[in-house]
Structures are given as structure tokens and as C-alpha cells.
């Protein structure tokens, strides 16, 4: 499919598109700058894919994968990569992204973004998988920092160091999820502000914003759960404004999955992000 609408994702605020909002967005795309979807939700085809193609005629689309499993020791599933390539050819997305995580081991796929130990071994493996994916897709991938609830004893570098080296080695770009950054840092007893600028800012091609929940564990400790089930928190808005003050406008996405509200609520969140974008450097990225 080649839409008459440009594929380029503007440096504006878009929304994560979920099935219940398909018809409304298709009927009234104005007021939505761009949308992002999980390609795996459309790979079985059917009416959902047809609706996405309709929406693509009016809006730029970003494909945000959850199934490449770039951190799998066994490597990338070639069939899944081919299916993603077919989806890219069909939708002509402005951006294609996936996560710094893994989901597959021993042939078992689990629908979660599982944590990697940040070691030299993992870095070499992820770099190899990212390069293969980029080669097949014919474009750079954006890699997203995951939300984390634990860390491994044998890690030898921080997440920011891992991502920085990955960018240098593979030419990939970054999808910087500020909710994930906040959730991970809070869960692991770190200061999110201390690591906010630790990644190469010029490599940031997209920012994610979302809500999270607090959960009390059985031992009384409290953790933050990246559930995408509420409005963006004040702490994450604070990280966002600090970041775009340095980077200038960057495509920004409002994600909301659990307890999905009316589309108007997502639009309002996107408008809030848009207002912050508007008061940055007037469309010129400051990071050279």
C-alpha cells in the first residue's frame, strides 16, 4: 500500500491506536497527528488490518513491535521478521521500533518484555539481532528502553551505557520511553534524573509517555507497574519537559492500554504534550 499521506512521523504528539478506537479514528482522523500500532495485532489480517489500511490513508503510522525479541539468545525468528517486513511494505510506516528485551526462549513465546542482563555478551547478541533486523527491513530500528522490575547481579553496565553502545555499533535509533525510565529507576532505587541524559540525545527518534500504577508486594515493598492504565504522571511530564528542552521537538506518543478511555481523553493527553512541544525550540532540534 502506498498512501497519499506522507509516511513521515511529525515532531508532534500522536496516540497509540487500539482496536476500540479504530472506527472513530477512521471516521474522524482530524485532531490526531499520527498513530502507532503493534504490528503483531494485525499480522493475522482480517478486518483489523483493513481498518488500519483505511486509517493509513489519512494519517502517518508508526509500527511498534513487541515480537522481534531482539534480546533472545537464540536469535530472531526469521518467519516473524519476514512477517514484519511484509507489514512494513504494506503500511509504509514512518517509524519502526521494538524493545530492548526478549520474549522467546526454547521456542516458547511469552507476551511480556523480559529483562536482559546488561553484559558484554548480551550487547553483542542484541547488536547482532538489531543489525539483522535492520538489514531485512532496510531501515534503522528504534529501540525502546523497557520498564524493569529487577536487575541482574552480573550486569557490567547501565542501561544508558548499553543503549549508547548499541547505537554506536548498529546505527539504530532510540525510542525513549520516559514512563519506563521513571518506573525502572524508581523500582531499582535509582534517580531517573541522573540517567535522563545518559543516552545519546541525537539518536532519540521518538518519545513514549504513559501512566503507571503502584503495587504493594507481599513483603510490603512497593513497586511501580508499567500498566499503561492511567494518565501520564506528573513526574513523567517533568522528565519530558526537561528532555525536550534539550532535544527540541521529537515525535511523542501517548500510550494507553489498560482501562482504555474514550478517544477524547487520549487526544487531551496528546494536546498537553503538544503544548510542551510548542514551547520548545520552534521545531528545530537543539541537539546537534
Amino acid at each position, binding site marked *: 500500500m502506498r498512501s497519499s499521506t506522507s509516511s513521515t512521523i511529525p515532531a508532534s504528539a500522536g496516540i497509540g491506536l487500539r482496536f476500540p478506537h479504530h472506527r472513530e479514528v477512521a471516521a474522524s482522523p482530524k485532531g490526531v497527528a499520527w498513530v502507532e500500532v503493534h504490528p503483531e495485532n494485525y499480522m493475522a489480517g482480517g478486518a483489523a488490518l483493513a481498518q488500519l489500511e483505511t486509517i493509513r490513508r489519512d494519517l502517518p503510522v508508526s509500527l511498534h513491535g513487541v515480537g522481534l525479541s531482539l534480546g533472545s*539468545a*537464540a536469535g530472531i525468528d526469521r518467519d516473524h521478521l519476514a512477517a514484519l517486513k511484509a507489514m512494513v511494505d504494506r503500511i509504509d510506516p514512518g517509524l519502526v521500533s521494538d524493545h530492548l528485551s526478549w520474549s522467546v526462549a526454547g521456542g516458547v513465546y511469552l507476551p*511480556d518484555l523480559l529483562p536482559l*542482563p546488561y553484559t558484554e555478551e548480551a550487547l553483542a547478541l542484541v547488536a547482532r539481532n538489531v543489525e539483522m533486523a535492520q538489514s531485512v527491513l532496510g531501515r534503522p530500528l528504534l529501540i525502546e528502553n523497557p520498564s524493569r522490575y529487577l536487575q541482574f547481579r552480573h550486569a557490567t553496565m547501565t542501561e544508558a551505557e548499553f543503549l549508547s553502545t548499541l547505537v554506536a555499533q548498529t546505527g539504530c535509533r532510540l525510542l525513549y520511553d520516559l514512563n519506563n525510565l521513571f518506573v525502572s529507576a524508581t523500582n531499582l532505587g535509582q534517580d531517573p534524573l541522573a540517567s535522563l541524559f545518559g543516552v545519546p540525545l541525537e539518536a532519540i527518534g521518538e518519545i513514549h509517555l504513559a501512566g503507571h500504577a503502584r503495587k504493594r508486594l507481599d513483603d510490603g515493598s512497593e*513497586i511501580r507497574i508499567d500498566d499503561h492504565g492511567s494518565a501520564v504522571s506528573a513526574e513523567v511530564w517533568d522528565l519530558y519537559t526537561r528532555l525536550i528542552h534539550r532535544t527540541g521537538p521529537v515525535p511523542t506518543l501517548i500510550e494507553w492500554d489498560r482501562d482504555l478511555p474514550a478517544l477524547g481523553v487520549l487526544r487531551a493527553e496528546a494536546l498537553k504534550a503538544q503544548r510542551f512541544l510548542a514551547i520548545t525550540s520552534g521545531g528545530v532540534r537543539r541537539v546537534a
Partner: protein
Amino acid sequence: MPDLATLQSDFVRALLGSDRESAIVAIDAAPASAALLVAVYRNTALSGLCEALRASYPVTERVLGSAFFEQTALAFVRERPPTEPVLARYGAGFPDFLSMLPALVELPYVADLARLEWAVDQAPLDHRCDSRRFTLAVGDADAQVSLDPSLGLIVSATAVRAIWTAVAAGEEDGLASLEWRTGPEHLAISCRDGEVVVTALSLPAWTVLSALLDGQDLAASVAALDADHLDEAALACEILSAPFIRIDLGHSSRNS
């Protein structure tokens, strides 16, 4: 410390509950105990898979009740986790799993109902096979007949079509009066204009269509029937009037 492949293998076993200890040695026990932190991931992974089953089997869930369905789905997920990331295609083995549950041995229609529901769930999705075509003589002309690529066939030992129809329509009150012991049912599931259609077939029609889907030609498919008891006209009428049949009469006369 384990290498990455070993760590990931251990982690998956920990999430599925078959070995909760091996992965934990590599985890920094902060901010909570490693076991509790692994449980956070376990909850996300398993609840996501149960949700995928719930989306594919809403009628089965209503018949079983939410709590029993959840418990059964969880057991299935742990025993047969997915092997690919497209969750819309996960759960094909759930009906067979139900059929082996001791708790449902007195209710064999539940597995059959789930089998029908899976076929209904998958019918709108893209199909990996081209539609089957065959040529039929119609007077002096040849008609090209094709089976819709969404067509799926199942044979149900119990009579579940009425149960599925009633529950899907939210009319569970009359369920007790439905007789499921009157099977078997030979059913066709297909999509038409975006809607899933379940059609009851005679045994001969189901047999012919099944052979066609298996790649046999029309003559071979019909030859498999018992010729002594075959009403060919009725069979042709039943198949050609089915909602999954497309007929193209625009072919030239055989005599021209």
C-alpha cells in the same frame, strides 16, 4: 553466573511455574525478594495469555463460568505456551485440552463448543490457502465454482450449534432446554460480508467439501460417497446454495 541462553531458559521455566528457583540466583534481591520480582513478570505473561484465550473463547467462558475458565486457561497456558508472537492465532489446542479435563467428562459438549468457537474466531482472519475451485457443467456451459477461502469444516460429536448460537446472542436462559446429545453435527464455518456464518451440512455434503478442501478434484470427492444412497440433485443443491460458494457463470459454452 549462567550464560544468556541458560538464563533465559531458566527464566521461562520460572514464569511458567515448572522451576521457580534456577533463575533467581542471577537476580539482585532489591527492591524486593527475587521471587516476588519474578512473580511480577509471571503475572504479566500469564494474564496476557489468559486474556488472549478469553478473547477467542467468550462463549466457552460464559458456559464454564469466569472463575473456572480462568483456572483452566491458566493450566493450559502453563502446559502449552505459545510458540509465536501473533496472539490472535494462539489457543488452537484449547478444545482438546478441555476434552481431557476430568471435571468436564460429563459435559463433552464443552470441548465441541470450544472447537466450534475456535473455527468461528479464526474465520475472519487471513487464510493461508487459496480458495478451492472446480468446474461444474451447467447446461451447455461450464461454471467455475469456488469455495470461499475462509471456509472451515468441523464435525462435532455433540449438537453445539444451537448452544453456540444461543450463548453468543446472550440468550443463556434457554440453555437447559437445548439437547446436546443429538449429534453428530457436520458444520461449515465461513465469512460473508464480514460476518461469520455457521452452516449445518448433511454428511454427504460435508464429505465432498472436506475432500475438496484436502485438494481432491470434484469427481474423486463425489466418488468417495455411497453411490447407492446418494441423491445427487439434492447434494448439488445443498452445496451450490451454501453461503461459502461462489459461482461464476461467465464461461463460454463447451460447444462453442
